[in-house]
């Protein structure tokens, strides 16, 4: 656990020393403040739209931070070769994965606290009331949803070599789940076999991230959802995050830190290799 926490602390330091978070926060703040300064149709309830837009921006920013941060973790360690001095220390690959996950997830949590604090200040200043329990549930479930996103993206980062391709693919999958996930079972009913079975299987296999979207509670100042449901959703997210992390570890533990490629150093060659490529080297 000590090693995982040490790695996590480095990930968090990286996040707050990069500009990504600040840029996204400033953009969200500017858009929200600009919209908040306008007064449409003399309608006091317009503040709900403002809250909705602000929360949407927070969701987009949080997804960008979560996917962007976790997609580059392992590939950047390889590309910058920082993985060599690190793995030369008494740290296992499992601890490294756990540390990367914890770091990204905690960093996302810190970013969410800043975003939601800003959101809270804006909404209280306009509405003069604060549904604390609903607000907490929205923040809590959002954070656990990001845990699944981070774990999924980490799995992608050991499968795809380039952070950009991993980030794009993961973002597409996550947006598809968020937008289409809840409709897949209805689509499956309308399809013929075997497609119906395939779509149903996908419906039951994918993590339903849309379950964690309880923005409406905050926007409309509704009562909080049943706390048992909240606990259930937390366990659901934890199960998926553990599954993705386990899969990441399975792939990463057998993966070569170095990949042999033609280009630099000869060894004794057997078979056609000798004739085809006179030199080769270890590359990250």
């Amino acid at each position, binding site marked *: 656990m000590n090693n995982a926490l040490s790695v996590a602390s480095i990930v968090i330091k990286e996040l707050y020393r990069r500009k990504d978070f600040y840029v996204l926060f400033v953009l969200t703040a500017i858009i929200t403040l600009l919209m908040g300064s306008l007064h449409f149709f003399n309608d006091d309830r317009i503040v709900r739209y403002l809250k909705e837009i602000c929360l949407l921006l927070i969701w987009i920013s949080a997804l960008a931070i979560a996917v962007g941060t976790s997609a580059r973790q392992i590939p950047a360690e390889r590309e*910058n070769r920082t993985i060599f*001095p690190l793995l030369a*220390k*008494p740290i296992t690959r499992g601890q490294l994965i756990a540390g990367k996950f914890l770091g990204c997830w905690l960093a996302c949590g810190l970013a969410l606290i800043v975003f939601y604090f800003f959101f809270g200040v804006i909404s209280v200043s306009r509405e003069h009331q604060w549904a604390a329990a609903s607000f907490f549930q929205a923040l809590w479930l959002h954070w656990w949803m990001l845990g699944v996103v981070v774990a999924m993206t980490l799995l992608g980062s050991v499968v795809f070599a380039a952070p950009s391709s991993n980030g794009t693919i993961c973002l597409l999958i996550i947006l598809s789940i968020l937008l289409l996930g809840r409709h897949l079972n209805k689509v499956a009913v309308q399809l013929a076999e075997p497609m119906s079975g395939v779509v149903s299987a996908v419906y039951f296999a994918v993590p339903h991230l849309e379950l964690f979207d309880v923005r409406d509670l905050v926007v409309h100042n509704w009562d909080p959802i049943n706390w048992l449901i909240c606990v259930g959703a937390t366990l659901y997210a934890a199960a998926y995050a553990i599954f993705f992390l386990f899969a990441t570890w399975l792939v990463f533990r057998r993966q070569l830190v*170095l*990949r042999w490629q*033609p280009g630099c*150093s000869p060894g004794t*060659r057997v078979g*056609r290799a000798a004739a085809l490529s006179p030199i080769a080297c270890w590359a990250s």
Partner: protein
Amino acid sequence: MPAQAVTTAKLPGMKPILKIEDLVVEYRTREFGQRVTVAVNRLSLEVFPGEVFGFLGPNGAGKTTTVNVLLGFVPVTRGAAYIFNVNVRDPIARQRIGYLPELTYYYKFLTAEELLRFYARIFRIPRAEIGPRIDEVLKLVGLDTARKRPIKTYSKGMQQRIGLAQALINEPDLLILDEPTSGLDPIGRMNVREMIQRLKSKGKTVFFSSHELGEVETVCDRVAILHQGELKATGRVSDLVEKYKCNLEQAFLKVIGYEPGHE
């Protein structure tokens, strides 16, 4: 061809700190039609406590592959390697070693102090000891004044020195240096040599991969010469020089079978 043993530093009853037994490392290239390449072939050697051991060979001889096996980066095809009697596959084998890679790359957004603190925590150095230990190694490598600066602002020589500092943070009993003077200017090289001598005088063991023969002749007690993945010779530098009746460079060229004009 079996390795030509000159002499070993082995004393009766002394246990090797690093032991490689019949090591074979093969790899498969990704290109279509290519089969197996043997990077290291039946390598056996032992390094004893307090030695500075030079691991020599031309580019592509298998030195870095062997170092990568010792660090657990590359899986072994056959044979085994042990550090302090622990198989290198076990991460705990790396608890008492320091490693300086050929090219040093560290987290550029960290300062030297933060980087060393991070590695110290991985070695589970007690919290109270971390500060004094960081002060000590930063003074040793001459980076005391730059400790609060981000690593991205460091020159190449300074980055090599922070590499040495991180290799020394756990007071290792065995230091594995992979071409430590690669890319350094003459002053940087001299500093590294002095540091190796200092470590030797403290009784540390240094496993030193290089093809800089002048350097090896100055600092190493024993050497092993690797060529095309095979161990060609091992023994004391002085014995090797005496056997071939020439300097280390010429002896090295003879051992690897190099004839001028016939590559």
